[in-house]
C-alpha cells in the first residue's frame, strides 16, 4: 500500500468512527413517571411497542406469553409486546454493552430476571426504579414475605417486580428407586448402591443444589442466612468438597466430569442414565411428564434440610425507551387474570406470586378450584423445607471452587 492508499484508508476509518459516535438521540425524559398518576402512565403507554427479553427455553412459557399475554395486551391496552430470547448472562451482557457504548435508548425495555441476574444488574446500575409501588396490582402481592421482598439477601427496594415464585426440589424415578436419599448420609449410601446415577450440573441450578448441601453441613436451614461470612464459607465448603471428592467416583461418569447445564441433566434423567435429578418449580416435572420427556414414574421430593425457595422478577432496564409501556405490561402480568392463566397445572404451571388472601372473592374461588398437579408436589407441600437464598458471594465462590476443588482434582 502506498502513501495515497494509506491516507485514504485512515480517513475512511476516521469518518466511520465519527459517524458511529455521533449518536444524537435524545434520552427520553422519564423523570415525570415516578410521580405521575397511574392514569397518566396508562395513557402514555397506550399504543406503544414494548420490547421484552426473556428465557425462551420452555415451550409452555413461550405458549403462555405468545398466545395469551401478547394478544391480551394488544386487546386491552393496544400495546405491541415484542419478545426476544435471552437468559441471564445475555441480558447482563446487553446491559453492559449498551452502557459502555453510551446508548441512551436501549433495545430492550423489560427483562425477566432471577436472583443472580438481578444481582449483576444492580451491580452495574442497569435497572430503572423504584417503580413497583405505582402499579395498581401490587396490592395483591405480599411484600412483607421475605421470600419475595429479598433477592439474594438484598432488599428489592422496588426495583424489580415479583412475577413467579418457586422452590427447588429433588426428583427421582420411582420405577428405579423406591427410597430416594433425603440427606447427605443417605445420599452417600445411595450412590454406592446405584453408582453412576447421580450428578450435579455445573450451572446455576447445580450451584443451588450445592447451597442446600452447604446449609445442611451448617446444621440448619438457616445456617447460611445473613451477610456472607468468609470463615463460615471456608469451614463448610471444605467439608463439602471432601464429601464430594470422596464420593464422586460413584457419581455419573465416576465424577470425571459433570453435565454442563440443567437441560443436559434433564436429558440424562429422561433417557435413564440418571435416577435422581434436581429442579426449580418444585422439581419442574409436571410439564416434562405431560410432554412425554420424563417417564410417568418421575416424582419430586423434598430434601430434609430444605431447598432454596426464590422468586423471579420483571425488571425495567435503565435505558429502556418505553418505560410507561413497560410498567403497564408488568402490571398486566401480575393481574389476577394473567396470574391465574399462568398457574394452570397443565399449561405453564407456574406458582402465582399473588397472595390469595388479598384477592377479591371471585378470584379466591377460581384459584381454589383450579386443577392441581398430577405428578409433582405443590409448593405448599414443601413449605416446611424452604431455605432463603443466601448472599451472592456464596454463589460466586461455589461456582469457582466447585471447578477448582472438585472438577479439576
Amino acid at each position, binding site marked *: 500500500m502506498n502513501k495515497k492508499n494509506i491516507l485514504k484508508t485512515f480517513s*475512511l476509518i476516521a469518518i466511520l468512527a465519527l459517524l458511529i459516535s455521533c449518536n444524537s438521540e435524545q434520552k427520553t425524559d422519564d423523570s415525570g413517571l415516578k410521580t405521575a398518576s397511574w392514569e397518566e402512565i396508562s395513557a402514555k403507554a397506550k399504543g406503544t411497542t414494548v420490547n421484552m427479553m426473556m428465557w425462551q427455553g420452555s415451550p409452555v412459557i413461550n405458549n403462555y406469553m405468545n398466545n395469551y399475554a401478547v394478544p391480551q395486551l394488544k386487546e386491552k391496552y393496544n400495546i405491541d409486546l415484542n419478545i426476544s430470547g435471552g437468559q441471564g*448472562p445475555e441480558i447482563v451482557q446487553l446491559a453492559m454493552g449498551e452502557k*459502555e457504548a453510551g446508548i441512551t435508548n436501549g433495545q430492550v425495555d423489560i427483562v425477566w430476571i432471577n436472583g443472580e441476574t438481578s444481582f449483576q444488574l444492580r*451491580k*452495574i446500575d442497569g435497572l430503572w426504579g423504584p417503580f413497583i409501588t405505582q402499579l395498581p396490582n401490587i396490592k395483591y402481592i405480599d411484600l412483607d414475605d421475605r421470600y419475595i421482598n429479598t433477592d439474594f439477601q438484598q432488599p428489592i427496594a422496588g426495583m424489580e417486580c415479583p412475577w413467579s415464585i418457586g422452590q427447588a426440589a429433588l426428583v427421582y424415578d420411582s420405577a428405579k428407586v423406591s427410597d430416594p436419599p433425603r440427606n447427605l448420609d443417605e445420599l452417600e449410601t445411595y450412590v454406592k448402591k446405584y453408582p453412576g*446415577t447421580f450428578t450435579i450440573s455445573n450451572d446455576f441450578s447445580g450451584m443451588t443444589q450445592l447451597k442446600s448441601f452447604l446449609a445442611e453441613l451448617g446444621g440448619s436451614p438457616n445456617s447460611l442466612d445473613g451477610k456472607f461470612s468468609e470463615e463460615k464459607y471456608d469451614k463448610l465448603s471444605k467439608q463439602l468438597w471432601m464429601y464430594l471428592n470422596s464420593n464422586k467416583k460413584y457419581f455419573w461418569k465416576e465424577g*470425571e466430569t459433570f453435565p454442563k447445564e440443567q437441560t443436559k441433566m434433564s436429558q440424562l434423567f429422561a433417557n435413564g*442414565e440418571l435416577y435422581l435429578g434436581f429442579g426449580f418449580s418444585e422439581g419442574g416435572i409436571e410439564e416434562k411428564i405431560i410432554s412425554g420427556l420424563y417417564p410417568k414414574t418421575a416424582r419430586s421430593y423434598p430434601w430434609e434440610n430444605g431447598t432454596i425457595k426464590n422468586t423471579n422478577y420483571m425488571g425495567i432496564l435503565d435505558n429502556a425507551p418505553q418505560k410507561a409501556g413497560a410498567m403497564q405490561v408488568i402490571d398486566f402480568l401480575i393481574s389476577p387474570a394473567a396470574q391465574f392463566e399462568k398457574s394452570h397445572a397443565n399449561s405453564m404451571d407456574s406458582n402465582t406470586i399473588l397472595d390469595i388472601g388479598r384477592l377479591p372473592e371471585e378470584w379466591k374461588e377460581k384459584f381454589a378450584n383450579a386443577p392441581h398437579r398430577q405428578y409433582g408436589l405443590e409448593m405448599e407441600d414443601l413449605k416446611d423445607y424452604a431455605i432463603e437464598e443466601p448472599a451472592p458471594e456464596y454463589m460466586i465462590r461455589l461456582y469457582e471452587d466447585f471447578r477448582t476443588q472438585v472438577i479439576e482434582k
Partner: protein
Amino acid sequence: MLIGVVPFFAAFIYALGYSFGLLGVLNNGFTTRFWQSVFESGEFLKSFGYSAAIAIVSLVLSIGGALWVTLKFRRELDKKFLSFMMYLPLAIPGVVAGFFMIQLFSKGGFFARIAFQMGLIEKTAQFPDLVNDSLAFGIIVTFITMLIPFFTLLFLNVYKNERIEELSILAHALGANANQVTRRVFLPIILKKTWVLIALYFIFLLGAYEVPLILGQESPQMLSVLIIRETHQFDLSKISEGYVVAVIYTIVVSITAILLFLPKQKNVYET
C-alpha cells in the same frame, strides 16, 4: 480487505483494552491483575495444550483416512452413489453432528441400548465412556467425520490437477513399485499442495466451539468454550480474564497465520 481487517482490529483493540481493565463497566483502570491471575491459574495453558492435542490428533487421523480413501477408492468415487454417501457428512453442521454423536454413543444412547439387548452390559453405567470423556473420543470422532470427506474431495482434486495418475504410470514405467510410487510421488505432491489448507484447518479446530461444547468435559475445556464461559461468568468483575485468554489466543493464531503466508511469497521467485 478493509471490510475484513478493520472490524477485526477494532475488536482486538477492544479485547485488549478490556483485558487490561481500561474498558468494561466494572473495571477501574489500567491493571495487570487479570493477566497475572490467568497465568497463575495455568488454566489457559492446559486448555491450549488440550485444544492443540485434539486438533493434531483429529487432523492426523482425518488426513491419514482421506489419503487412504483417495488412493484406494479413487475410481469408485467417480460413481454417483458412492460419492454422494462419502460427501454427505459435509452437509451436516457441527451442532447436528455433535447431538448425533450423543444420541449414538452416550450411555443411554443407541449403541448402548443395542449392547444391553445383546446382553453385553447390564446397566447403563457399564457402557464405555465415549462422549464427554477425558480422551475426547466423541469430539475427535465428530471432527474426523466432518473432515475426511472434505480432505478426500481436496485430495481428489489435487490428484486430477497435478496429473498424479500420469506421473504414477511414468514412475512405474521407470521401475518403481507401488510403495515407492505412493511415497515418492503421491504423498509429496498432495501434501505440498495442501499443507497451507491443513495448517488453516488446524487453527479452525483449535478454535472450535459447538462440538466441544456439546461433547466435551468441564475441565480441561477447549479454548473457545473456555473463553465464552469466562466472559459470561457470574462474577462480573472477572470477565476481563476471558478477554485475556481471547487476546493471547488471537495473538498466537495471528502469528501462525502470518508465518504461514510469508514464506510463500519468497517461493514465488525460486525456480
